[in-house]
């Protein structure tokens, strides 16, 4: 089961989170990095199913930016690519 976590950027370190001064909960959130920026992909090919699949979890909806960490520009390109691939039945519209 590859989906869900697949879209998360491979960002490491650079922890963001409140340091509890008075023994409050300390939690670090891994910083999300846009996969496309990291991998320097500036053209999302609708034929590259393997790439697109990382951004469509089980339900086959497009993984939102807030979860995947993709930047706005690349999310736009991704959206376009996914929609083209869907039209050609390379990836599903929705699955139950």
């Amino acid at each position, binding site marked *: 089961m590859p989906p869900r976590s697949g879209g998360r950027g491979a960002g490491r370190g650079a922890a963001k989170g409140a340091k509890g001064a008075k023994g409050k909960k300390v939690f670090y959130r891994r910083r999300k990095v846009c996969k496309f920026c990291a991998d320097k992909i500036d*053209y999302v090919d*609708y*034929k*590259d199913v393997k790439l697109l699949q990382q951004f469509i979890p089980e339900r086959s909806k497009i993984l939102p930016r807030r979860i995947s960490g993709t930047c706005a520009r690349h999310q736009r390109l991704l959206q376009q690519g996914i929609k*083209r691939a869907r*039209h*050609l*039945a*390379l*990836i599903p519209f929705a699955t139950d």
Partner: protein
Amino acid sequence: MRTYELVFVVDPRVSDEEVVELTGEYKQMLTGGGLVIAREESWGRRKLAFPIHKLTEGKYVVLYLSSEDGTRTLADVEHRMNQNDKVLRYLSVRTDLDLKRAGRPQLPEPIGEGTPAVAGERAAEGGRSGREE
């Protein structure tokens, strides 16, 4: 120069020879309209992500085209595909601007016409993106 990609999915019940024939017909139309076929890929039989007309498979053909100036031929070919029941889906995309922006070569390296399906696809993936597997 403008470049385009034209993908179409053919009914799997259509024989391979017929697919080649059909592709040839479209290619003839395209070249007749001043388009150059830079590369042709045949992915062969492939499972569809969802059934189309109750079919679960389709035969994919990809054409990479280029033209010096705008053309109307592509629209005519699309029209023909639309009328042909054997063509389940088609998609044509103009790619030069996006590829240019991404700093990618706008024309794929040509391989021989009618290259075997698997080899063609693999070569394509390797060529399109430097990151394989």
